[in-house]
């Protein structure tokens, strides 16, 4: 299939290990953040979100951490599986424009079997 991103930073992990993907966001006024997973040839798929009044949110096998002081987001994936291989994007939502998402540049996750 077609490649989502040929020149993205890549994180390679062993199946079963934990993965941490980082993202720096741009606007201190952003109040809502989303992590998306994008597989080759598909659109972005929602993984987990977090509001700016929270530092941490957990889902199934995923955790998002938000550090507003340094404008940093991270996505932690526990027990990474081959199906987790994809490009991951963070997106921020500006408080004064609640419908528009600003996407980061993405990280490719490769899971070694």
């Amino acid at each position, binding site marked *: 299939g077609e490649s989502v991103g040929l020149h993205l930073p890549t994180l390679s992990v062993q199946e079963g290990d934990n993965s941490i993907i980082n993202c720096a966001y741009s606007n201190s006024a952003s109040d809502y953040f*989303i992590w998306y997973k994008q597989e080759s040839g598909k*659109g972005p798929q929602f993984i987990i*979100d977090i509001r700016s009044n929270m530092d941490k949110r957990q889902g199934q096998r995923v955790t998002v951490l938000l550090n507003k002081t340094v404008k940093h987001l991270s996505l932690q994936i526990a027990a990474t599986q081959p199906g987790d291989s994809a490009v991951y*994007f963070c997106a921020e*939502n500006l408080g004064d424009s*609640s*419908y528009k998402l600003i996407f980061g540049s993405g990280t490719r996750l490769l899971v070694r079997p």
Partner: protein
Amino acid sequence: GAGVSQSPRYKVAKRGQDVALRCDPISGHVSLFWYQQALGQGPEFLTYFQNEAQLDKSGLPSDRFFAERPEGSVSTLKIQRTQQEDSAVYLCASSQGAARGYTFGSGTRLTVV
């Protein structure tokens, strides 16, 4: 339908040709968005509709780009006199409200030769 449907899946256009890209949002979704994704990059906002009203077209790169949603459901993104820099994946998303709950389609990959 169950998801956001976009057509065509792929489009090759000769430079100077006009193209029309279609988006069928999830039934009942009020909000519809178009994003452009260059290779190796995150999606970038183009335009936003609430029902049939185009409330924000600030992301459209030039006056060659035009979007419509005349009956508040299906939307068409039209690009006139295509240029090589228009080559990208064009993603459509819909939601019931604002930024929460975006569902993306698989996109149309446009290649201008």
